């Protein structure tokens, strides 16, 4: 199709300005007449608003506008519209917004906030999922039955915001077999904060009856549509543009503070900037959710998994948000990796009176893979099989059924395990450490996916021989918009990637897009861009064939020229052809669109799922060596190795950078990034002093092997490569620490105190009494029965 390969270690064009401090992120933007905003937040976890009087604040110096719940009538959500912009009458978490103020300076806005007269009558709060699921627990949303349902199918009841189930085959029969061992494991993980270095930030203005929102987001179209819904205006009245984004990791995959600035801009008639403080980010970021998991398997003595059941509890915090959707993912993560006989899984998103959780790189997958892989090691130990041999025996291969009955294509994990053997053997470290520390090693597998879905692209051919690529894609740091997309377009048109101008996201300029996340940029935006570029190519070749007097099929596009195949230097430059085309026919452009075709699941297997089967599976094999200090409980990672299924690597060097960074984020999650909630419902870690991020001295260089050639519907055979590197890090470290210590690792992060507790046997078995003994007793309603949401 293309005469020059799209594969190269192409450098990113935004690096020079980022290195010189010239890049203007949203938080750096400054408009004439711009006001500064601040948000008043509740300081109790649960309560009734008795009084909220802003009259004194309105008279404060510099104050230009104040907005409250009365200004924002709508509610948003994924699946369920349960989330207002401001607390209305009821406060559901510590940090929930009450009012927003715009003033000439930030100090004035903050001073005015302090004069708002608020009286809150405390109400009982549920701060943990155990409390929330207890009989007669106070309901976080007493009116849950009245909420608008945006997506049908999930079971709901009281504090269970959403429940998704998978049932395939007869699990009871499998567990009753006389030739199986029943292995049961329980796990618990805490929250993780993204700590994107640029906090949520927005500059909004209101011009000609429309909102213009410049914001630090991954999802311009979600911001457009959700802001409109919150404000009660048509979505066409909201325009969203996105400057370079200073880190996201899923944090910016949802609406955040944009409507505050939009409302204040309309109310004041001036542009308004709102930037979250670091403390606001620490306390109210849309964390990776805390979760509790019980998993049971029936396994024959020769290692066949004949039955598996699991209960996964996911804390959504005070509002459903992303967790509603993420209940879907358990089927593909915890239900992934291995061939299963019969299967039943339930994922429950549970309301608590805590800050809402959200999306974070490999959402759900990180802890489900931790649970699955630790459980897998416990199974292997029980039946006396080598854990690697057990994995080799059971990993998904060509024609195997996934948990929801989808048929997987291609043998991918097995050759990836072989590849890892080679990496590991080349390293060959010793098994005993001279310094008395305990050595451990583990190899884990993981299953992730590409979140396909709609994307649009336009390619405009310029008469100077360059093209402009117009999409709603956002550069969040991963480089997809700077590297893979221009590479794909340039490869199709025989141009240099530097000749592809990439338009920053603007919902007024480009068509709908799901957003940058879920490994979908290169796949979905890439496919749309490829198709748009192909249309341009066809048009140019037609004009060129007249100019060169050769049939279009005999022409090639390479090195900025359209030439007769096999005759370098023949033909014309692309600029000449584009100029001629423009004069004769008008400017040349092409449009492209993409969405996932959808892969069938087995009928009747799933209920409450947003995605029944995964269009593009992505596999990962990780391996590490650790040293555990028996005196301090400190875990040192000695080596880390990754074999990652990338489909096709368009920019291998960029992918290596994503893997190193993703693994290190995973090491933080595995070892020391810990979020805890105090007895009043407030997150304890309010800054970098208390939230321990990985530092340069903590990390190791990751040994990487990119596995190419697995089937993918992505353009040129690509899969998303930037999201998945974090997937099995928690699992791998946990399995290695269990291997080193001989102890049952059931929780993350493995901080030194937690490891010491394990070593000293001070840690009792994890007990999750709010998960019912019988799987079926955990369900709001039996799998497959009709929805009763509307009753």
């Amino acid at each position, binding site marked *: 199709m293309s005469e020059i390969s799209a594969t190269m270690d192409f450098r990113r064009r935004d690096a020079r300005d980022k290195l010189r401090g010239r890049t203007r992120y949203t938080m750096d933007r400054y408009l004439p007449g711009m006001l500064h905003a601040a948000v008043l937040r509740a300081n109790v976890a649960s309560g009734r608003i008795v009084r909220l009087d802003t009259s004194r604040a309105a008279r404060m110096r510099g104050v230009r506008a104040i907005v409250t719940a009365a200004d924002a009538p709508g509610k948003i959500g994924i699946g369920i519209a349960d989330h207002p912009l401001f607390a209305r009458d009821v406060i559901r978490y510590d940090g929930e917004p009450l009012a927003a103020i715009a003033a000439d300076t930030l100090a004035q806005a903050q001073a005015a906030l302090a004069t708002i007269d608020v009286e809150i009558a405390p109400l009982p709060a549920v701060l943990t999922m155990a409390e929330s699921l207890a009989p007669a627990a106070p309901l976080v949303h007493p009116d849950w039955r009245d909420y608008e349902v945006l997506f049908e199918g999930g079971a709901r009841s009281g504090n269970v915001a959403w429940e998704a189930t998978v049932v395939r085959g007869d699990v009871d029969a499998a567990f009753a077999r006389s030739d199986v061992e029943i292995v049961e494991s329980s796990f618990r993980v805490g929250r993780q904060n993204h700590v994107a270095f640029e906090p949520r930030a927005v500059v909004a203005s209101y011009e000609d009856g429309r909102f213009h929102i410049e914001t630090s987001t991954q999802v311009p179209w979600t911001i457009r549509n959700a802001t409109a819904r919150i404000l009660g205006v048509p979505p066409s009245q909201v325009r969203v543009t996105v400057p370079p984004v200073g880190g996201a990791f899923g944090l910016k995959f949802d609406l955040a503070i944009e409507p505050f600035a939009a409302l204040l801009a309309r109310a004041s008639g001036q542009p308004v900037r709102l930037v979250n403080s670091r403390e606001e980010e620490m306390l109210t970021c849309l964390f990776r959710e805390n979760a509790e998991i019980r998993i049971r398997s029936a396994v024959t003595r020769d290692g066949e998994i004949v039955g598996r059941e699991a209960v996964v509890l996911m804390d959504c915090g005070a509002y459903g948000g992303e967790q509603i959707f993420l209940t879907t993912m358990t089927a593909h993560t915890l239900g992934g990796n291995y061939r299963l006989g019969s299967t039943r899984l339930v994922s429950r998103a549970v309301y608590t009176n805590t800050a809402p959780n959200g999306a974070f790189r490999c959402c759900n997958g990180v802890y489900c893979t931790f649970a699955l892989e630790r459980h897998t090691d416990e199974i292997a130990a029980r039946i006396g099989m080598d854990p690697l041999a057990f994995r080799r025996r059971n990993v998904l291969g060509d024609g195997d059924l996934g948990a929801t009955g989808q048929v997987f294509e291609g043998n991918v994990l097995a050759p990836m395990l072989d590849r890892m053997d080679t990496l590991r053997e080349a390293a060959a470290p010793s098994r005993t450490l001279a310094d008395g520390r305990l050595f451990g090693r583990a190899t884990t597998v993981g299953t992730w996916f590409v979140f396909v879905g709609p994307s649009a692209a336009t390619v405009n051919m310029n008469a100077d021989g360059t093209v402009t690529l117009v999409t709603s894609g956002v550069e969040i740091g991963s480089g997809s918009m700077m590297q893979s997309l221009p590479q794909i377009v340039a490869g199709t048109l025989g141009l240099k990637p530097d000749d592809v101008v990439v338009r920053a996201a603007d919902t007024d300029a480009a068509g709908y897009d799901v957003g940058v996340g879920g490994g979908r940029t290169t796949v979905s935006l890439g496919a749309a861009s490829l198709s748009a570029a192909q249309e341009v190519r066809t048009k140019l070749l037609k004009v060129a064939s007249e100019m060169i007097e050769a049939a279009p099929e005999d022409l090639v596009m390479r090195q900025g020229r359209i030439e007769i195949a096999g005759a370098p230097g023949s033909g014309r430059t692309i600029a000449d052809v584009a100029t001629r085309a423009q004069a004769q026919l008008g400017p040349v452009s092409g449009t492209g669109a993409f969405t996932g075709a959808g892969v069938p699941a087995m009928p009747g297997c799933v209920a409450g799922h947003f995605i029944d089967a995964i269009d593009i599976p992505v596999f990962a094999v990780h391996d590490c060596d650790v040293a555990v200090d028996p005196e301090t409980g400190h875990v040192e990672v000695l080596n880390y190795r990754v074999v990652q299924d990338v489909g096709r690597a368009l920019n291998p060097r960029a992918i290596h950078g994503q893997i190193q960074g993703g693994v290190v984020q995973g090491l933080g999650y595995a070892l020391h990034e810990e979020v805890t909630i105090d007895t009043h419902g407030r997150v304890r870690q309010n800054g970098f002093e208390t939230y321990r991020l990985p530092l340069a*001295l903590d990390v190791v260089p990751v040994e990487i092997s990119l596995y190419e050639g697995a089937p993918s519907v992505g353009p040129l055979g690509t899969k998303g490569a930037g999201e998945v590197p974090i997937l099995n890090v928690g699992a791998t470290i946990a399995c290695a620490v269990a291997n080193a210590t001989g102890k049952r690792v059931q929780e993350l992060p493995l901080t030194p105190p937690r490891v010491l507790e394990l070593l000293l046997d001070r840690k009792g078995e994890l007990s999750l009494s709010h998960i019912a003994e019988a799987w079926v007793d955990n369900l709001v309603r039996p799998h497959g029965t009709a929805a009763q949401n509307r009753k």
Partner: protein
Amino acid sequence: MALSLTVNGDRRASAADPVTPLVDILREEFHLTGTKPVCREGFCGACMVLVDDRPTPSCLMPAALAEGSDIRTVEGLGTGDALTAIQVALETCDAVQCGMCFPGMVVTLTHLLATSPEATRDDIRAALSGNICRCTGYERIVDATLSALAVK
């Protein structure tokens, strides 16, 4: 009383309160937004500037204490459009991702290059312990620094 600050060689005046963190004056008054206030606790290093050639977190420095000193921000490190040695190395290694930490990284590493020409891999990692990066996992930054040292 107005503050008088010397930033990137220019004398600048500010009417801000003398205890205002230097980072806020640099950004909000002088529009030198390369300096990033990320944690405001002195841990992350994204707001690092050179004060009399010493890397200093500008979030912790009251502006009045910087009077009489030579303040150099990331914008003042290169000449014209040219990149400095460490910037060239970081670009060449494809080290940059979101980019928010890099102005501070560049400031710290500029100092390292000037003062520790023999720095080893471990020295560089130790020198970066006050500069946090959330995207890259650091290795490329260390590699780039080693290559910049080798060129010198």
